[in-house]
């Protein structure tokens, strides 16, 4: 299963903080920089959980299980908020 950004999603870094605007939920959210990194990666190309884990391994000092937990929870939340969608 791969994830891609929903159409019309806007994301910007303003100052030191990261913001996301979902056209679907009409929500504006402050997101953690690591969650923001996930959005940037998914924007580059649709990603699987495994490919995101691999990409984040280069920039994070998480353990493998912590990294996978963080990515899974964030993707689930982002899906609920209409930020990303699953491509089956």
């Amino acid at each position, binding site marked *: 299963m791969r994830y891609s950004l929903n159409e*019309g999603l*806007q994301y910007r870094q*303003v*100052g*030191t903080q990261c*913001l996301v605007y979902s056209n679907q939920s*009409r929500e*504006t959210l*402050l997101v953690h920089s690591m969650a923001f990194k996930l959005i940037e990666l998914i924007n580059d190309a649709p990603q699987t959980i495994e490919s995101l884990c691999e990409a984040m391994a280069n920039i994070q000092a998480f353990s493998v299980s912590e990294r996978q937990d963080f990515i899974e929870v964030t993707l689930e939340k982002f899906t609920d908020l209409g930020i990303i969608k699953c491509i089956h």
Partner: protein
Amino acid sequence: MFYISIPPFDVQLETDIPAVINSINHMYQYALKPVEDTEKFSDFHIRIASPSSIRKYYRPQVQFYIDGKTPFKPLPLSQAFPFFEWGLNWCIASHTYQYLLLHAAVVEKGNQALILPGYPGAGKSTLCAALVSSGWRLLSDEMAVIDTKTLELIPVVRPISLKNESINVISESFSNAEFGESFLDTAKGTVSHMKPPKQSFIQRNQRVQLKWVVFPRYLATQSTLLTEKEKGETLIELAENSFNYNVLGSQGFNVLCDLVASARCYKFEYSCLDEAIDLFQTLANEQ
């Protein structure tokens, strides 16, 4: 019939209520259009009149009409002018989509704009009135109108609405502050309007770029404290204070991002107006 020019809006007002006529002549003295301009387009056609019911004999009321429709319940006749002001706020907030609108006061110094957003009771109108009485130019007391293409702040020069204790605070502190009638027992308590300085009306076509976003908070025992605010949090709060952010969608988000990125953002706690004015003067001098 009045034709009021508060760029970017033109308002046509029909009323035969003497208190409203007097207040309009006083508060909008420099914004009334000459008769030869009256054939031109008006954005809002408003009528303030007493509803024709038997109530007018024992408890007279006033009604607000926009294009012949009545979006609000009538109010006591004594509140006719504030009703016009509140109704006009509603007209602008609910019919304007070509600009981003924030619930905020806006003043200018040195060709740089200061936005004072805030929830009701935060003290933004009091601070705005104090700054305007101290030489800052009034762009707007009630809403920041932002050009979505140029990010300029557009003046909408109208009376500053002050409530309860702030009326005495401003009238006693600033001898140059000119007030209209006090309206008692409104939904917001006692309300009185401060007339914008003539210079603000003269410069009402001069747009300004944003320099500062300051969230004021009046606390009776608080010493003056200005602290930097993260830009992301500033954007979230501005979005919450916007009248039409959600309608503008991603355009609104990008406008706010650009606006906040270029501004210095603070939260401000105060109880002493003199200290507040000095502090903002220092900010303006730092340019």
